[in-house]
């Protein structure tokens, strides 16, 4: 099974809701749509499902054009943010419902339901009603119902958003196994960069109705093609600073300069971006030092998010251990000039950072 989008776009009222998207999606790993609310994730999912008809472009399922086909005539299953189950049916019947519609033989239905229930650890609850389940179990039932259909395409729209943090963590750990074992193409929409990384697989970043990049999660995270992608794929938010290039050095203002990475033009204006975990409050060999003023410290126990003001820029440092500088005190931030992202005036990545690749 495969799904391909060829220049699929949508406009409403003369305004582009989704700029043309070209994507090739394969089974075996999740295809994560990452972007904030309003970026176009749900729009894209609806187009893939056939709930809306694209204004332009073609959608191919296993090479066959399915652009105009209604969802009923495509092989699609969907999981929503809300836990949607039939309240009067047992968990077993809920999972079995798409198979009953398809009029499968009784023992085949039983076999498939038990298999899906095993994958999602729902076996002890098959006789219960959805109202007797926890939120996590209800959502697992909805996922099982989507899986049992063995649809060619399974679309998940922020399926874990309404679950408790810890439950979310558990399911994030289990889902990749499901994706690997099933032959379906999975598309998974989320607003959270951490979730996209934890699920692994391919990530498509969306910003303001535009697909900005598509590739393996680790690669997109470390080499964002442009500023929009880097912003969408950073949590805590990307630390940014305007930088001016001249004489082989980048000038950040206030007399602070750093060596420019190779491969840049003679001069120009850039935006420097660096993620919170690449910054340090302790000196590093070969690091650039920036004077800053502490604004706020958030301590998680193992790490500290230290919010800083650098001139009129607001930055966040993620430091290991417990760091609580008094608000208003002067601190120095260090970073390795090899680990910055540089974006040109049009927002495109101009310097490839020297970052460790994913394992």
């Amino acid at each position, binding site marked *: 099974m495969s799904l391909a989008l060829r220049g699929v776009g949508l406009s409403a009222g003369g305004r582009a809701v989704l700029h043309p998207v070209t994507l090739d999606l394969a089974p075996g790993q999740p295809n994560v749509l990452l972007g904030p*609310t*309003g*970026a*176009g*994730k*749900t*729009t894209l999912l609806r187009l893939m499902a056939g709930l809306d008809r694209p*204004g*332009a*472009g073609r959608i191919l399922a296993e090479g066959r054009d399915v652009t105009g086909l209604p969802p009923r005539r495509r092989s699609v299953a969907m999981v929503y943010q809300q836990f949607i189950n039939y309240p009067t049916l047992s968990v077993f019947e809920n999972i079995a419902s798409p198979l009953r519609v398809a009029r499968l033989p009784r023992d085949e239905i039983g076999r498939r339901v038990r298999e899906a229930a095993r994958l999602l650890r729902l076996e002890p609850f098959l006789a219960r009603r959805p109202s007797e389940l926890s939120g996590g179990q209800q959502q697992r039932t909805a996922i099982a119902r989507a899986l049992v259909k063995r649809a060619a395409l399974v679309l998940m729209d922020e399926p874990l958003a309404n679950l408790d943090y810890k439950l979310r963590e558990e399911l994030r750990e289990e889902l990749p196994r499901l994706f690997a074992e099933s032959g379906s193409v999975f598309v998974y929409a989320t607003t959270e960069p951490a979730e996209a990384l934890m699920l692994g697989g391919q990530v498509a970043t969306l910003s303001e109705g535009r697909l900005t990049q598509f590739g393996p999660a680790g690669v997109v995270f470390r080499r964002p093609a442009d500023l929009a992608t880097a912003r969408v794929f950073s949590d805590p938010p990307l630390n940014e600073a305007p930088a001016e290039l001249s004489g082989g050095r980048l000038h950040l203002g206030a007399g602070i300069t750093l060596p420019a990475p190779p491969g840049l033009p003679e001069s120009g204006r850039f935006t420097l971006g660096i993620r919170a975990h690449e910054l340090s409050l302790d000196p590093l060999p070969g690091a650039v030092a920036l004077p800053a003023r502490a604004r706020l410290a958030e301590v998680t126990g193992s790490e500290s998010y230290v919010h800083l003001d650098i001139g009129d820029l607001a930055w966040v440092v993620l430091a290991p251990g417990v760091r609580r500088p008094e608000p208003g005190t002067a601190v120095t931030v260090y970073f390795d000039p090899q680990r910055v992202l540089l974006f040109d005036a049009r927002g495109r990545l101009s310097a490839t950072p020297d970052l460790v690749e994913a394992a």
Partner: protein
Amino acid sequence: MSKPRDQRAWLLVLPVVALVAFSALIPVMTVVNYSLQDTFGNNVFFWNGLGWFRDLLDPATEFGGRFRGALWRTLLFSALCLLIEVPLGIGVALTLPRRGWGVAASLVLLALPLLIPWNVVGTIWQVFGRGDIGLLGAALNGLGIDYNYAQDPLDAWITVVLMDVWHWTSLVVLLCYAGLRAIPDAYYQAARVDGAGAWAVFRAIQLPKLQRVLTIAVLLRFMDSFMIYTEPFVVTGGGPGNATTFLSIDLVKIALGQFDLGKAAAMSIVYNLIVLTVCWIFFATTTRGQSEAVGERS
């Protein structure tokens, strides 16, 4: 992008088009045709152009004066019904229980008047208000209040308005009750935390959240009361004199009493246009600004 379009789909719409033509367009065209003629329905037609419409809109003519009178009466009746039923309906909805056995009981009781055929409603009130055997009429007269809807125009008005209130307030109550139930608990909790009293809660939360429901309620009640016929006809027959002759009653008098089909046709067209215009203006003004709230999700 250009794409070959299959036009055969239009064929599928044909049955609907035929049905609409038969049930709506043909009668409407007949009425439009009649409104331009002078006829008593004996298949003899005299061309009258826009004559009926000129008369209708000129209060100096007999026809125009009659129309103007009935129009004002109808507007007054609708206004009274809305002014009483909407606040009363909201008020009753606010006092209904929110949970427990009382919910079902009160909803069933409220729905009862809505289930009674309209001419029966008229008959009930016709008997109810009679001075000799009616519970209401006899009781009032027994108390020394002179009440006779058949002779006193004010009594007749009180009776028909009361009847409409009795018949239709439940509808407003049910709509508002559904609207109130849809307000999340957090709003009430927030208002309590903010120290809001019952009135402030009503103004800040309940009334704004009921806006959509009330739009529907007011529209329904306006259309129904503006076109009311059966109940007042059964009770007062439009009298005493012309005191309760509403547009619908007058229209029937002209069409079926006098067989003046051209006049009746002209009048029904204007009648219809008034309903449409009032509803459209009301709907447009109340729903303006609501559309922004939609479409926040991606």
